[in-house]
């Protein structure tokens, strides 16, 4: 169970690292800042025009967050499956011995 305990501590640390900035920086929306890249580039080179734009863009924040959630869910689902599969395998081995 040491692994489990260690992992819980590590995950708590990650959560703290994510929450801490929310307290540190009060008046920010924590934007993804893709737009700020644009700003910085136009600041350095005002004549630059993006020469290509995405074929498709999520129509809004809601659809975008749906797709991001889907991406995370697909990955997490697979990892969850693997964890369960491996633990079951280990248990079976234990029972056989």
């Amino acid at each position, binding site marked *: 169970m040491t692994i489990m305990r260690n992992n819980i501590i590590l995950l708590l640390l990650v959560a703290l690292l994510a929450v801490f900035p929310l307290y540190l920086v009060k008046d920010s929306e924590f934007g993804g800042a893709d737009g700020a890249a644009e700003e910085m580039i136009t600041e350095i080179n005002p004549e630059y025009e993006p*020469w290509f734009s995405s074929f498709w863009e999520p129509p809004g924040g809601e659809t975008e967050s749906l797709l991001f959630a889907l991406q995370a869910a697909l990955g997490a689902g697979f990892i969850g499956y693997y964890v369960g599969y491996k633990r079951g395998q280990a248990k079976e081995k234990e029972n056989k011995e």
Partner: protein
Amino acid sequence: MFNKKLYSIWALLILFLVPESAFAMHIMEGFLPYKWAAFWALISLPVVVYGVVSISKKMKENPELKLLLGVAGAFAFVLSALKIPSVTGSSSHPTGVGLGAILFGPAAMSVLGMIVLLFQAILLAHGGITTLGANVFSMAIVGTFVAYGTYKFAKKAGISNGIAVFLAAAFGNLMTYVTTSFQLALAFPAEVGGVMASAVKFLTIFAVTQIPLAISEGLLTVVIFNFLSKYSSQELITLNIFKKGEVLGDDNHA
């Protein structure tokens, strides 16, 4: 002298306290001049091709590793979907490529990294097709090679496995964004000071945003590695990560 010191402390404080939306993710669609887009694509291509060859060879020799390869890809999928707030008042995300780089080697992981980047470019308009080569280079090539190299080096130096994994994933993440800064700086040199001035501009904001995220990425990679060292030790032996008889399961303090 004193003033200079005071100024730098002040600048550092500003950097930490003034919320500034920073570019801290992949390079957006169309935001690299086409010459640079082509340049990075040409550099990345052979690595990815080599990666495909190396994956298919590994899977042919050890088909039992397929699930673990899936885990490496899935891990990158999850982590790059997590936009985490950072101390600069903007958000960025981990890359998750360190795990796969340690397990399957940097070239193999570059293929999985590219798949993640493609998904985000096509479905999320995050990153882009024209900037795919540059983003593959920073995240899936520099990120993976740095992670792999750091892991090997740390192990050789006798550092415990958990710490080695942490350092590898964290440095891989950090170097990814350092690379992105330089890619942008090369394409957009400042009028005064050129590439270096631009690089400093992109880096000052970047580095600070990315440090807590690099730590998070390191910790999360240790979490999954802890599980693997207990339940997938056979696969780790096959991949030459662990030697036979070396069980890192329970005594792995990270």
